[in-house]
């Protein structure tokens, strides 16, 4: 057998369509399709999990905020009660203070000075500002976030 014939036979042997090769191709194709489906499913699962986790965190933060607001209101009420005039007057009397009489007040006239008494008004409660969502996500950023979320979930699972 010449060298050229020998080479032709080797190529035929390597690339030729053998009966068992068609099965391999089918399995490979199916495996590939399965792989793609799995990747899509995994991505979908990761995204859903992330969304749900974030929503849950948001809900908890909302609950926490409501509770902190109630705490603040309560503290404000407590401060107001501690500063109430009947209480302050009682405490002042205990400490030995008493009302000044008009004959105990000394008015001093300062030449050319005009005192401008500040007008006290309570600080208005600031209105909550609504901020719109900012869309500045890139593909690499999104992939990193997915990876981080996936890793965090894995870490949480492992630490249990």
């Amino acid at each position: 057998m010449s060298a050229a014939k020998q080479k032709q036979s080797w190529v035929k042997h390597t690339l030729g369509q053998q009966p068992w090769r068609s099965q391999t191709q089918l399995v490979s194709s199916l495996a590939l399709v399965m792989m793609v489906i799995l990747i899509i499913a995994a991505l979908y699962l990761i995204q859903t999990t992330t969304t749900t986790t974030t929503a849950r965190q948001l809900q908890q933060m909302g609950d926490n905020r409501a509770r902190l607001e109630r705490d603040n209101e309560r503290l404000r009420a407590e401060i107001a009660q501690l500063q109430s005039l009947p209480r302050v007057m009682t405490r002042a009397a205990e400490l030995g203070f008493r009302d000044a009489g008009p004959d105990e007040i000394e008015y001093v006239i300062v030449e050319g000075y005009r005192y401008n008494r500040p007008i006290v008004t309570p600080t208005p409660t600031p209105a909550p500002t609504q901020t719109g969502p900012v869309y500045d996500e890139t593909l690499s950023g999104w992939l990193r976030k997915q990876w981080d979320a996936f890793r965090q979930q894995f870490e949480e699972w492992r630490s249990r």
Partner: protein
Amino acid sequence: MIHDESLHRRLTLITIVLLGISGVLLVRLLSFQFRMNPEIKETLETNAQIRYSRTVEVQPNRGQIYDRNGHLLAVNSFDYRIGISPNQVYDRQEVARQLAPLLKRPEDEIYRQLLPDDNGIYPLYVLLAPLVDFETGQAVADLEIDGILVEPIPTRIYPQGPLTAQVVGFFAGSENARERQGYYGVEGYYQLLLAGQSKRVTQSSIPGLQEANPTVSVRDGIDLILTIDRDLQYLAQDVLDQAVAEYGATGGTILIMNPRTGEILAMANNPNFNLDDLSAEGLQNARNQAISDMYEPGSVFKLVTMAMALEAGTHDLTWSYYDPGCFEAGGVSICNWDRRSHGNPTFAQVFIDSLNTGTATIFREMGLDLVYPMLREFGIGSPTGIDLEGEAAGILVTPGDPNWNEAQFLNNSYGQGISLTPLQMLTAANAIANDGLIMQPHIVKARIDGDQIIETRPSASHRPISAETAHTARDIMVQIINNPNGVDLFESPGYTVAGKTGTAEIPAPYGYEANAAIASFIGFLPADDPVVSVLIKLDRPAGYWGSQTAAPTFQELVERLVVLMEIPPDSKRMELVSQGGDPFNREY
């Protein structure tokens, strides 16, 4: 070979059958998705809606109430309602053990509430405590028990307690937040503004679909800054309570106003209202007597008579008359307080000596056609329109009314046969203090809506007299309390005060009560440039006369008032004025 063919046929058959079943299922699925009976579709969607979402009413924060210096008079807080879903509880015994000390209930009682009924079905919700205080509610929430529901119930705290209770009113109602509202005072009058606007929100049970913060879009109630000065309110209440005790009165009122703006600086009543007692009997005192209770004002009303006569031009300072001590008119006897003749008193002397015969003569000379329209100009017989709930209009009987007669007309000249509220009386007298102009009485100085502050601008409601008339009347008022021979004499060292006392008989079903009177005093200072006007009213004092009970009370009040309001003595004030300064640094 035969075996292979049989297997192949069977497999083909199974494949066809399975494909057929799949096809049927697919067709059914597609028909469900796209060709479903609309009624069934609607029912299913409604069921899904009920299962996966709920509509709740998000309540706004009620507006807070401050005094003019920013001290809180009404502030929000929360109580809690504790409930539980027993089907979500794993260890009932442990849950009952944890909750029992906090809810102050027996452990076994709570445990029994967590058990299923006779059919083995758990109730969806069990109420464990209808109302617990803030600390208990937070402690229960901190336990983080599965299935526990800790619902906040908005409440109101009034840090100053009874001191401002009748002015501010109160917030009450059922435990349902929607059914709670303000009653009496500012809480009642400004209910809609304070309440804000709730919002109905449909919340999804699916976390991802929940609105992030539904409370943001709820319109909170508007905060109110009152004209009330907490320190002056305390002073007024303190002086009033002391006076009621000292003079054996059954009650009373002290009203402090700025006659230049119509602002109410203090409004104290005795008895006042205890916010902890919301029983039917306790609620009797929730009424603000200064604006709701009418009385016959007596001689303080002579200030109105004096101003009217001077303004009408029918009388001036040179006028005089013969005082018989008593005279008959319209079938009744009109007498001076001492039933004695004072000779031929002048116009000013009529008021310095508080002569009923003098004011009755003035009214008779003025005539009906002049008197009644002028009384209306002073706001007599009409509500002042103050922004507080429960104001009474007063009673002015006019010609044409079945009860009217000439005797009543003459009685009106010295404040009998006419009914006013303390606020109406002081508002009318303020015309003299404010150069003839009556300013609209008001209690709200400003409203805070988010980051906006809306100030209440002082506004004039009537001009019953000219500035010139007001100044003449004011000079007579100064003489009333400074004249060494006057009945209303009292000392106010360093300060010029204008004032008038009153001792009014109290109407009874047939005539007037014997040996009982309402003693009162109206005054303002500094007389030449008033910044504060005061009404003192004592009900049925043992001392009877206004000059012996209400006038000393006014003196006691003024001595402390000038310190709190930083009103310098006249000499110092004049020095400041001569330098071109405003000693009161007025905002108007």
